[in-house]
């Protein structure tokens, strides 16, 4: 154990059916430091934290904690708590209908009799000490999200924590609230608490952290002092690319040449979840939205399809101004949308493969024009064959298919409607490599046939391979647009890391 280390994790392994979530990962947290844990979605950040907090059991490796002789055995969240590890999650896990003081002490007392008066006094002292603007007798729900977050931290800190884990604490806070939270974090750091900070916001990492550990695909990439790792390099490390290699990326397949006609155009389009943005796509063009997770790329395409409540902007389809307020409007205008979260928004799990394939087409035909059974069978057969969907039969519930085949079913659903413009949000997520390539080839083929496609993927190579234009987003704003020679990983990363707001 290193001298000032408060937590040392060595060679941690954890696997789930089919994946190695953590592969010999090391992590060291020193006293009085803020340590950012970075990585893309699925890199293993949350698994590592769950191992540390006893939600998951590690398969290999050791954990040492300052003040505990030998190896620390953490088998439950209670063990973690007793070992001095506290966690504050993204979503607030306190009880909004209780008071601040009640929230700080509930579930902690070993005594039978609860002395609320004492607790209120104690709570007042702690809140005052940490400079948290809340009164002990105030109902928690009357506090702002940031203050609720801080109360959760105060509760954790009072339980003598040595290690404080903050999992995406800023995702629902505004800029001022984030500053407040950072103030508290710095204060705790000066008191010697080691803080693990998990976030998707790069700027926040540089604003408050001392050290960064990067994970990728369940493996440790490295640990760096924050001043030695520029933002661009951090992005490169998270994506797993060496900056020097990136120029030599080979191109697979022939990119399509977009036509002249504009198929879809949006002007200052905004929705309940996205900020106003401008966007257009031409006939036969493949473009993509890129940016880190949480940058607003999915929200933007959802606005195009009318999936969230559209709040403003003008939309033209084939040069004619139209109103797209709900998915059905978009479908009538020849737009299809494969959602990011296949399980939640895509498949109707209990319904058959056939019903899932014909669903969008049936909806476009209308309520009083049910398709003939023979037509359904014909279309289902056609697309099961065309996309080589592996299923026991067309009557099999789609939920029992593998992820890749579920994705193909949803693709089939939209291809069947012959859209002019198809939006694919993360069509390759969580599916095997072979299917990923098939889907990319399909995108290029569709563009050849004059379909316009927006293709979003977390894997930047996939987008560079297929898109002729990339729209780069950060913090819910478009920060750049890349075409032609600029379509390189280096450019994308530079734009993500340091792009100027539109």
């Amino acid at each position: 154990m290193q001298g000032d280390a408060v937590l040392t994790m060595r060679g941690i392994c954890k696997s789930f059916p089919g994946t190695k979530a953590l592969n010999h990962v090391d992590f060291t947290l020193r006293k009085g430091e803020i340590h950012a844990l970075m990585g893309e979605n699925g890199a293993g950040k949350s698994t590592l934290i769950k191992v540390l907090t006893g939600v998951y059991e590690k398969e290999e490796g050791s954990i040492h904690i300052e003040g505990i002789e030998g190896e620390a055995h953490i088998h439950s969240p209670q063990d973690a708590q007793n070992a001095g590890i506290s966690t504050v999650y993204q979503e607030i896990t306190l009880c909004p209908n209780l008071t601040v003081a009640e929230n700080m002490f509930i579930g902690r007392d070993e005594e039978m009799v609860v002395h609320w008066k004492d607790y209120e006094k104690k709570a007042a002292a702690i809140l005052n000490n940490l400079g948290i603007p809340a009164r002990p007798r105030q109902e928690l729900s009357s506090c702002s999200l940031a203050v609720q977050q801080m109360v959760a931290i105060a509760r954790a800190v009072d339980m003598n924590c040595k290690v404080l884990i903050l999992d995406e604490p800023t995702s629902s806070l505004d800029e001022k609230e984030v500053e407040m939270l950072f103030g508290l974090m710095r204060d705790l750091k000066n008191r010697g608490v080691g803080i693990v900070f998990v976030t998707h916001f790069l700027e926040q990492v540089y604003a408050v952290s001392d050290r960064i550990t990067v994970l990728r695909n369940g493996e440790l990439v490295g640990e760096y002092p924050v001043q030695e790792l520029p933002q661009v390099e951090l992005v490169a490390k998270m994506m797993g690319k060496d900056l020097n290699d990136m120029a030599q990326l080979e191109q697979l397949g022939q990119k399509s040449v977009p036509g002249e006609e504009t198929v879809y155009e949006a002007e200052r389009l905004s929705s309940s979840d996205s900020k106003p943005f401008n966007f257009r796509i031409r006939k036969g063009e493949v473009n993509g939205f890129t940016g880190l997770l949480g940058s607003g790329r999915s929200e933007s395409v959802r606005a195009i399809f009318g999936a969230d409540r559209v709040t403003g902007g003008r939309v033209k389809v084939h040069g004619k101004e139209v109103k797209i307020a709900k998915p059905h409007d978009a479908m009538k205008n020849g737009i299809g949308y494969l959602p990011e979260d296949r399980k939640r928004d895509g498949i109707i799990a209990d319904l058959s493969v056939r019903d899932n394939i014909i669903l969008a087409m049936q909806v476009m035909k209308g309520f009083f024009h049910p398709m003939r059974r023979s037509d359904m069978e014909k279309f289902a057969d056609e697309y099961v064959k065309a996309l080589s969907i592996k299923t026991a039969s067309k009557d099999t519930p789609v939920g029992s298919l593998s992820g890749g085949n579920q994705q193909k079913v949803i693709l089939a659903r939209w291809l069947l409607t012959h859209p002019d413009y198809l939006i694919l949000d993360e069509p390759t997520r969580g599916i095997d490599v072979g299917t990923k390539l098939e889907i990319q080839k399909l995108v290029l083929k569709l563009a050849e046939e004059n379909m316009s496609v927006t293709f979003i993927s977390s894997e930047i190579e996939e987008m560079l391979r297929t898109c002729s234009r990339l729209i780069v987003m950060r913090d819910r704003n478009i920060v750049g647009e890349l075409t032609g020679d600029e379509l390189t990983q280096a450019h994308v990363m530079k734009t993500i890391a340091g792009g100027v707001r539109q």
Partner: protein
Amino acid sequence: MNKRIIKKGGVGQLLIPLVALAILLIFNLIRDPGFYSIGVAVNNSGNKVLTGNIISIIDSASELAIIAMGMTLVTAACGGQDISVGAVGTIAGSIFVKTLKAFPDINFGTLILAILACCLVTILFKSFNGALVAVFKIQPMIATLILFSCGRSIAYWIVGSATPQIDSPIINSMGMTIPGIPIPTPIFGVVLVGLILTLIFRLTTLRLYTESVGVNQGAARLNGINPVGIKMLSFVILGICVAVAGIIGTCRMGQVSHKTLLIDIEMDAILAVAIGGNNLGGGRFKISGSILGAYIIQMLTTTLLAMRVDPVNIKAYKAIVIIIIVMAGSPVVKQKLTALWHRIRSGGLKPASAKGVN
């Protein structure tokens, strides 16, 4: 009828209710070989009518079967149940009587008018429930709790705080038998509602939309389906079913009694949906299963009555049998039974596996 169901939709979901019905049928056959005898008698109005336990079971289950059909749709679309069907059915009965009483005599014109008035009122009440569920996202049981508790008072108030009688050959024909036709009229009510629903499923995409909304309403919305509309529609259809059941019940008694009309039918209807193998959490559904469930419940009551069980105790016996049926259809037991079946097929039952039976 059973054979057709098996051919049409596969037995999977209907296996348990069919087995339960078969056991009840066989049990009665052994207990009393004359249980199924059908005779012809002349009733008070001088009509020839079919008599016998089977006829009486199918006849008495009519209101329940009709409401169970509507309840299946609401369950499938909303993932919850309407507990105000009995109360709203009584309101329908009151409106029916009130409308008929407004005219000097009862003829086909006034009858049609009264039926339309009933449907209109129940559709209004059910649209209110539907709006609470679909727009305000209140749980169906809570959304319908209000009408469950005050519906019968409203019915009482509509008919002017009394239990008015209606007596006319037309009403008798509707509640009992039409002269010349020996089969009780309510049975035709079930057939009619069943046919209309079948027709709706043929001519519209209601089934696909309802199932999609019930399984995953977010995904359904992203495919252009309007979940609010579908949920409202399911309540409107239930409303019409409730009106029909209320009218049949009123005609059967020749009066509207807010205390006894369609009493406890909401729970029996939910039960019928469950016994029919439908998922009470919404999604895929089989109306035929719910109809089967309704007849099973009525069969059980009639059997117990025939066994001279004190009517006060019938509910207790019914509860025991129903618990057994529902447990037999539960996923846990199904899984264990399947495992047991495989073990028996692959080389004899070993003593150790006896543990898996319950």
